[in-house]
């Protein structure tokens, strides 16, 4: 043992990592991250005297100074009896009260799923249908639901958010994105006189959600607060008929071998299994209607890509629907007679994603049986471009800035601002259902 040194000693102490048909251990393992000079130095090893059982080593502790020849004393760790709040360390994971052996995979508002919508559909046991359901699209075409001067009012909204309401030359996404969404919702609220049922709604921000479910031996959880939620006094009616729901039994969920469905989810052992809708029992607006997700980061790497945003919308809508179903019908796993419907809108200030989710079953552990349904309308532009400052090439104004354009007559051929009003806007309007 004394002859061995360095890597050879480590090789002798540690058995070989791989049993490759009996070949020996490697003399050096693979590269270990962290250069030795930056690692914390190990504490000095105990004297050999301590290895002899039953022997009381003579140390220099009583002499209060070092004495060569005597053993190094080992003191119990000092407990000062109190901790300064600045230097308090959290309790180790194993000792925390909510620690559980089974790992839980948590999805929160910053998770970016590798497989995007496919992974979200597998996690929620849902079938994807492109395009919004016919019931919602019929609301778009109904002329009673149109707002007077709709196009002009939306142009005003866009100009206000992107140019007028801030004193900066070019407002940032953190400023204009919430302003656009709030203004559009306000525009919809202006229809309360025509559709009095719109008054039975309320918007709530900073709500916390927590739901847990089992999915084929994985314990999954959706947690966190993300964006605003519109609550109503009456639940949304089911969109798909019973036959369509029964037809989903034949649908096979898409897997993505060799990637595990829990990739990019946060794995943690400290969690609480309680369901929490975010609102107490006696809340006057108990049913969730629409969720709004805003991507307000100015830098592109910090923003979620449209695919990731859609996956996040699916999972949060599913979490809300599941918590609501469990509150209404109990926590048994069963197929719901009255499916729970939750809508969702996600945007980054220009591109909108729409989603309608119908929760048909809470039996999510197996892959067979009735599936949930998701209608997605993705990548709808509200406007193509918006240039606050004029585009000048070779000292010639190629495109006038938005400020100068707005003061002239409204000209629909302005190249930077093509407004696609109908399909996006009317959906944001809370329907009169």
């Amino acid at each position: 043992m004394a002859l061995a040194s360095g890597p050879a000693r480590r090789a002798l102490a540690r058995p070989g990592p791989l049993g490759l048909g009996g070949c020996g251990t490697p003399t050096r393992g693979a590269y270990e991250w962290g250069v030795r000079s930056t690692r914390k130095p190990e504490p000095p090893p105990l004297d050999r005297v301590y290895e002899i059982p039953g022997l009381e080593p003579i140390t220099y502790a009583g002499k209060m100074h070092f004495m060569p020849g005597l053993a190094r004393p080992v003191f119990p760790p000092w407990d000062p009896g109190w901790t300064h709040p600045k230097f308090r360390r959290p309790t180790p994971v194993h000792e925390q009260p909510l620690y559980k052996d089974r790992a839980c995979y948590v999805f929160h508002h910053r998770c970016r799923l590798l497989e995007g919508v496919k992974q979200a559909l597998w996690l929620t046991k849902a079938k994807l249908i492109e395009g919004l359901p016919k019931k919602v699209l019929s609301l778009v075409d109904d002329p009673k639901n149109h707002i007077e001067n709709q196009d002009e009012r939306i142009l005003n909204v866009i100009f206000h958010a992107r140019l007028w309401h801030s004193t900066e030359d070019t407002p940032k996404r953190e400023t204009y994105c919430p302003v656009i969404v709030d203004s559009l919702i306000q525009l919809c609220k202006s229809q309360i006189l025509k559709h009095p049922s719109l008054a039975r709604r309320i918007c709530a921000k900073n709500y916390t959600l927590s739901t847990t479910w089992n999915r084929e031996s994985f314990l999954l959880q959706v947690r966190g607060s993300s964006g605003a939620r519109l609550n109503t006094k009456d639940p949304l009616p089911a969109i798909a008929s019973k036959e369509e729901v029964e037809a989903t039994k034949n649908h096979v969920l898409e897997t993505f071998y060799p990637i595990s469905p829990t990739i990019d989810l946060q794995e943690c052992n400290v969690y609480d299994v309680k369901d929490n809708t975010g609102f107490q029992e006696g809340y006057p607006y108990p049913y969730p209607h629409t969720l709004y997700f805003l991507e307000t980061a100015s830098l592109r790497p910090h923003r979620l890509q449209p695919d990731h945003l859609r996956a996040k919308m699916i999972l949060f809508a599913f979490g809300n629907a599941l918590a609501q179903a469990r509150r209404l019908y109990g926590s048994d796993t069963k197929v719901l007679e009255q499916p729970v419907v939750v809508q969702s809108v996600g945007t980054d200030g220009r591109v909108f994603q729409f989603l309608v989710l119908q929760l048909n079953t809470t039996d999510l552990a197996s892959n067979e049986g009735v599936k949930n349904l998701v209608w997605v309308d993705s990548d709808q532009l509200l406007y193509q471009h918006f240039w606050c400052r004029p585009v000048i090439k070779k000292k010639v104004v190629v495109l006038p800035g938005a400020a100068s354009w707005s003061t002239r007559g409204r000209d629909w051929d302005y190249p930077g601002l093509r407004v696609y009003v109908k399909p996006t806007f009317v959906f944001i309007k809370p329907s009169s259902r």
Partner: protein
Amino acid sequence: MALRVLTRAMGSLSLTTPAVATLSSSLLPAAQVTSSTLLQLPSSSLLLLCRPVLTSVALSANFVSWKSRTKYTITPVKMRKSGGRNHTGRIQVHGIGGGHKQRYRMIDFLRFRPELEAKPGPFEEKVIVVRYDPCRSADIALVAGGSRKRWIIATENMQAGDIILNSDHIGRMAVAAREGDAHPLGALPVGTLVNNVESEPGRGAQYIRAAGSGNVHGNSRPGIQR
């Protein structure tokens, strides 16, 4: 400690001798102090009373390596360039320095590294994206298997969506090698082009890692690959 010695020694020095200082302070006004100092020169005896003093000290090199991260991650890590300097701060290799700022992506050179110790067999991974790496001549590929993602050196025709196999199994028959797969050399037929070769199993690839490199597997004796 050197600083303390220096200040003590400096404190013992003065421009004038102690005798002259008392005379000047008592008899002469301040305006005439300057003339008296020019007349008096420090005698050699005073110099002998002073300790020899170092008025300069060599700076120690504060070199801390930037490689302090112990946990593996796929996000790029900030790095510091050496400029050819070693831990003493002096140039050891000339000609290195400058260039665009780079972030280091931690590459996993041990291909056969199962995610869980409980499942030791061969496993497959999927290539997510192949991208440029500023720190090396070869491109790197982000591969995902199970619940973990890692960077590996990409082979020539690797594309997003490929499935690659990492295996440690040596069978009686040589494996029909596909591009991008990792096998022990004993399982590969003679004549396959290999790269990212490790000298012993479990060591990690140390040879043939640069772009355009590839070596012909020439050993014709199966089962004695070390």
